[in-house]
Structure formats: C-alpha cells, structure tokens
C-alpha cells in the first residue's frame, strides 16, 4: 500500500459518502442513538449510586470519621482534637457529633427517634442539612430548646400508602423529648429538613450545648466527621491525622456504607450487564446497517476490480467509510450526551432519593466509543472483503 493507493482510498470513500448523504445521515444517526442508549441509562445509574453515597457522606459519615476505640463510648478531649484536625491544610470542615435517642411525644403520639447533638456552625462545612431546610430555619449555635426534625418523621410528608407511625408536627410546634437519663424537656421545631437520604431524614438535630445540660458531660463526641476537598484523598488525610497522635479509629466513608454499598454494588452489576447487552445490540445493529450498505455496492466493487483497481484499495475505501461512520456517529452521540448532561446538571432528575445528576465516567465513554467504532470497522470489513474477493463477473452481473 503506497501513498497513491491511500489517495485513491480516500477519494473513493469521500465520493461514496458525499454522494450518499441520506445513507450517511441514517448510519450516523443510528450510531449516535446506540451511543446514547448505552451511555445515558448507565450514566443515570452511576449518578444514582453517586447520589446514594453522597447522601451518606453529607449526612452521616463525612469523608473520614473518627470513632472511639472499641473499649470507649466516647472520644474524649474532642474540642482539642477538632481544633488540631482543622489545622491540617486542605481539610474543609470538622464536626463533632454526639448520638443519642429520645422518646418524642406530640399530641397523643409517642415515637423513639435517634438524635444527633451537633455543632451547628461546624456542620455547615461538613453536612448538607442547612442546604435542605424545607420549612423554618437552620439551627444557630446559640439556639436552646430548639430542634430540627427530618421530614421522614412528619406525617404531612408521608406518602399516601405509607402507614408508618409519624408525628403530626409543624414548624413552631413543641415536642416533649424524654432522654435516656430520665430528663424530659420541651423543644420547639425550628426547621424541617429533607436531604433525600433516608439515613439522615429520620433524625432529630439539637445543638450540642444541650447535651451538656441534659447529661452533664462536655468535651466528648460519639464521632468526629471530617470533610475533605474531594473523594479519593482519604488515605493521605488519614495519615496526616495519625501523625497528630490520634489513637481513635479513623474510618473512610467507604467502610460505613453497609446497605448502601450493597445497593450501589447491585446497581453497578446491573449497569454492567445492561451495558454489555446494549453494546452487543448496538454492535449487531451497526453491523447489519453497514453490511447492507456495502452489500448493495457489490456491483460497484466488481466494476472497480474489472477496470484494474486493486482489491486492497477497494477494501480500504469501504473500511475507511465505515471508520468515518463510526467516528462521526460516536462524536455526534458524545455531543448530544454532553448536552443532555449539561441540561441535567442544571435541572437534575428528581428522584425519591433526591436530585440525581447522570455521571458519564471516562472509562465508559472510552469503552463505548471504542466498541462502536470497532463494530463499524468490522461491519465494513467483512462484506467488502467478501465482495472484493468475489469473482468479478458474479459481482457485476450477479450470481
């Protein structure tokens, strides 16, 4: 194959495409739709999984979570520890929490509810409760006898067919809380939050100062949540915290996923299976379309051979056409997909777990693009090879 052959290959491929615009448009449209059908559903599933994980990170775990050693109930000297961790360059936020539970009574309804005693100011940098206030206001660190309550605990936010016991409270109502030490206090509902994560929205949040008043203990924490600049840097910051001489357990968010991990794992397996089937289907569709296109050109292939055009040139021109179909189709699919992603980033899909933004991973983008381009090349190669190998007279006159 020399330079001149490549020139003839390019010329024939260009003329075939330029003169058959409708065929070209149909093929690249199918390619682009195949690309979208594979990547869009997968991107939604990936976005859903990511949203579940973010729900856990933003509500319950942070990127890193310091927990007491096995023999202790609490982290002691938590104030100093929080201050020291905040000094580590790059750490976005550090929030101590105390976990407890209460019996909440309103009107004639009594419910056992988990409670987080939080530092309202520090939580702003770590969790997303303040961004998800449906009614009322977020806590300020000076608030006493006020609380935030998750929407899943409130009757007016329950779905019609949900019969689980809930409280019929609203912002401004007062709940009677009975704590584990026998202390009973009134708390006014300052705000109602709904993060979309069922692991967060069934909690009550109260200022940590109240804990000292109720239980008479301070400078302790059940957990310290640490927010990092991004996912993936957990190992680096764990070492930095260890270097501070921390003896408590330091756990990255991944170790706290539990049921979420199983659920997201199941989604990812489903995603892989549907993605594989989608690729096979797209491969078959593209193969058939290009196969028919090339088979219809059998006579032209015979004529070219008859007048002395090399088999390799004919084959090359059809493979080049198929490559162009593949690349243009995949690029078009990518452009549409990026448009959809941009649109859904501005207007996320509203799902029961919260707003979901589809995520197209680089790996999926490359795998899907490469497979579809490969499919189009294969689809162009075999029928044109067969036609180029055919007897000239059979190709021209049929048979």
């Amino acid at each position, binding site marked *: 194959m*020399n330079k*001149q*052959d490549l*020139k*003839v290959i390019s*010329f*024939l491929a260009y*003329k*075939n495409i*330029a*003169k*058959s615009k409708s065929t070209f448009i149909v093929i690249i449209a199918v390619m682009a739709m195949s690309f979208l059908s594979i990547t869009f559903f997968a991107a939604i599933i990936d976005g859903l999984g990511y949203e579940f994980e973010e729900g856990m990170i933003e509500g319950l775990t942070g990127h890193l979570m310091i927990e007491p050693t096995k023999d202790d109930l609490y982290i002691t000297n938590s104030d100093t520890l929080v201050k020291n961790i905040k000094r580590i360059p790059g750490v976005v936020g550090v929030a101590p929490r105390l976990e407890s539970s209460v019996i909440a009574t309103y009107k004639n309804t009594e419910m056992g509810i988990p409670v987080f005693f939080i530092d309202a100011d520090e939580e702003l940098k770590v969790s997303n409760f303040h961004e998800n206030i449906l009614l009322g206001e977020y806590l300020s660190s000076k608030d006493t006898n006020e609380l935030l309550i998750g929407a899943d605990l409130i009757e007016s936010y329950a779905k019609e067919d949900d019969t689980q016991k809930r409280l019929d409270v609203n912002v401004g109502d007062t709940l009677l809380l009975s704590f584990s030490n026998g202390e009973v206090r009134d708390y006014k509902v300052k705000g109602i939050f709904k993060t979309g994560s069922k692991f967060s929205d069934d909690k009550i949040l109260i200022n940590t100062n109240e804990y000292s008043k109720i239980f008479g203990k301070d400078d302790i924490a059940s957990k310290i949540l640490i927010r990092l600049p991004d996912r993936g840097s957990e190992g680096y910051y764990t070492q930095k915290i260890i270097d501070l001489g921390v003896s408590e357990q330091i756990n990255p968010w991944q170790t706290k996923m539990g049921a979420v991990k199983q659920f997201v794992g199941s989604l990812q397996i489903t995603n892989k299976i549907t993605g594989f089937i989608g690729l096979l289907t797209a491969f078959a569709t593209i193969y058939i379309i290009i196969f028919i296109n090339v088979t219809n050109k059998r*006579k*032209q292939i015979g*004529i*070219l*051979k*008859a*007048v*002395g*055009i*090399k*088999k390799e*040139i004919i084959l090359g021109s059809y493979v080049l056409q198929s490559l162009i179909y593949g690349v243009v189709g995949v690029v078009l699919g990518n452009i549409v997909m990026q448009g959809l992603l941009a649109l859904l980033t501005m207007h996320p899909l509203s799902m029961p777990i919260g707003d979901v933004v589809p995520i197209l991973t680089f790996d999926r983008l490359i795998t899907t693009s490469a497979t579809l381009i490969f499919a189009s090349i294969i689809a162009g190669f075999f029928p044109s090879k067969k036609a180029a190998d055919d*007897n*000239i*007279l059979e190709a*021209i006159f049929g048979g």
Partner: protein
Amino acid sequence: MAKKIIINTRNIERVYTNGMIKTYALKDISVQINEGEFVAIMGPSGSGKSTLLHQLGLLDIPTKGEITIDGEDVVHLSDSERTRFRLEKLGYVFQSYNLIPELTALENVYITPMARGQNSEEYKKNATDILDKVGLGDRIHHYPSELSGGQQQRVSIARALVNKPKILFADEPTANLDSDSSEDTVRLFRQLNKEIGQTIVMVTHELEEGKKADRIIWVKDGLLDKNKK
C-alpha cells in the same frame, strides 16, 4: 511487414460445474488477433461469445488452455498481477456502461490513471481530453444519472481508453442504445482503430456492426464456427 499477434489463444476451454453436471461454455478455442486489428465476435445468444471475451479480457480464467497477450502468459498470473495487467494494458466497455454512480464523468474516467500513480494535473488533463474527444467536453462534471445512455456509453469508452490500453474490449456496447447512439459508438470504434491503431475486440449480435470490423470471429455452441466467414 508481418503484423504482430497481440492475442493468441490455444485450445481454451471454460467449463461450469454444478454438482455432477458439467456445462461447456467454450471448447477448444484457438484464435489469434493482430495488433491494430478491429475484431468482432459474433454468434447466437448463449453461443459463448461473451464468455470468450471475458477470458481474453482477464475477467475470468479458462478451465484449460493458454492465452498470451502482448507476449505474456496471462492464464497463470496471480490475482494481483491480473489486476495490474488489466489496469496497465486493457480497457473495457460493458453493455450496461457500468459506470460508478457516485463519480462524475470526469472522475469515472480519471479513477484508473489516478490508481496508476499519475499526478493530479496529468490525470485530470488526460481525462478531460479524452472526454472531449468522445464529444462530452461539456458534460464532464455530470453524474451518470444525469447523462443519456449514449452519453454514458461514451464516458465508458473514455474510461477504457484513458490509459492508452493495448486492447479495448467491448461487450455488446450498443445493446442498450438507440440506433443513432449505436451507430455513433461503432463509428467511434472504427475511427479510433483507424486513427490511433487501437486494437478492439467487440462482441455484438448485430451483423451490420460486425461488418464494420476488420474481421468477424463466429462462435456457436462454445466452438469456433468455421463455416462462417
């Protein structure tokens, strides 16, 4: 001066086998065609005249026998050597023109010199000149679908001649044309033969056209019909 034999066949045979059944399309054909000769191959339908042309034009391979063209044994050439030989030394005009529909008249003509490695300026000039010569100078940018049957056949003749082939093969070139276009086509062949000494081998079923050739080779039932002269 003795004329040079450009095509020499010896006992060629073409058999089509379908299971146990053998059909002889050509049997024991030995012909010689001289350089610069205009030869018509004639015979009834199914006599084997096109089959003979396909063997001589390297579009098919005989089951038996020898074919020498321009001194070269062409039966035993490899597939790629046959392709090269067709490109360098032979030109074809088919009954149904067989132009590439995606290429303009000019492109249909210059595709083979382009494949031979001529530079762009050269092959475009040669193709334009030859199209001009066949009377299509004003139609060079038209696609086959925009040309009449007679015009398409002239493009096909231009494509066959652009590389100055040793031999021009024409397989019933007038079968799809009206009488005026048919006459034009055969006249053009005669003219090319006289003016530039082009060797032409033409299959036809029209005796009037055959009579315009230097010689008629008659074929009947796959054999040379030696009773006809």
